[in-house]
């Protein structure tokens, strides 16, 4: 078999650069969020017993569009994603991450609090 570790070694080398690591990790988090939304929609579709063609009809789109969307072959547009969520009786939400107490809150906190 051919030795296939070149990419992994190059990534490990590059991750030693803090700027590369920060952007790599930021991008992975961003991708994870889009992936999670699309996989959740597909899980809801399966739970509802709908084929991709059924779902496409529900939102008035060509079934090839929905098929390509769920197999990551096209960039999902927010409008289409929202339409899919509506058709599956779901909705998209933005949930703020829990953060440490912000510096603004710390500045305005009463003394001794």
């Amino acid at each position, binding site marked *: *078999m*051919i*030795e*296939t*570790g*070149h*990419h*992994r070694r*190059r*990534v490990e080398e*590059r991750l030693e*650069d803090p*700027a*590369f*690591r*920060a*952007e*790599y990790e930021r*991008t*992975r988090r*961003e*991708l*994870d*969020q*889009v*992936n999670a939304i*699309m*996989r959740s929609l*597909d899980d809801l579709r399966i739970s509802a017993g709908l084929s991709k063609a059924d779902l496409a009809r529900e939102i008035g789109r060509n079934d090839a569009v929905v098929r*390509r969307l*769920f*197999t*990551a*072959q*096209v*960039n*999902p547009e927010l409008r289409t994603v929202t339409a899919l969520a509506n058709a599956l009786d779901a909705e998209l939400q933005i949930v703020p991450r829990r953060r440490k107490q912000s510096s603004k809150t710390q500045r305005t906190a009463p003394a001794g609090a």
Partner: protein
Amino acid sequence: MAGRESWDVIYYQDADGRSPVDEFLDLCPTKVAAQLIAVLDDVAEAPPPRYSGGGRWEAMHGAMAGFYEVRAQGPNREQFRLFCVLENGSSEELARRGLSRPAIAVIAGLRKPWMTGFSDRDYASVRRHGDDHRNQVPRRIKE
């Protein structure tokens, strides 16, 4: 078809031993290289037909059918692309190609200014590398 375990990421190497992918990534701004590589790793960890790539991995059409592109945007909205093909099939077929498991084969990279397109010659160059890659049995990759 192989199972759903993660795939390898391999880089095409030409007959002179050059890796167009390494050369391209070395010339990309650090943040752009990080984004492109993050997408490759994301797709390799949850390979097709599972949803992955977060919208930055797209199947190409027309003359480039069979290729997938990874997209990133750099300073001044400059556009960066990696062009890939999938190495998938039965374990016997993969072994014939010298691969122990399915892989994303990264063939080449290109960059272009915002709101411009790649030329037919650019795409032909990518296809020529892709054809060369697929004609090599076992595959000739960067080791």
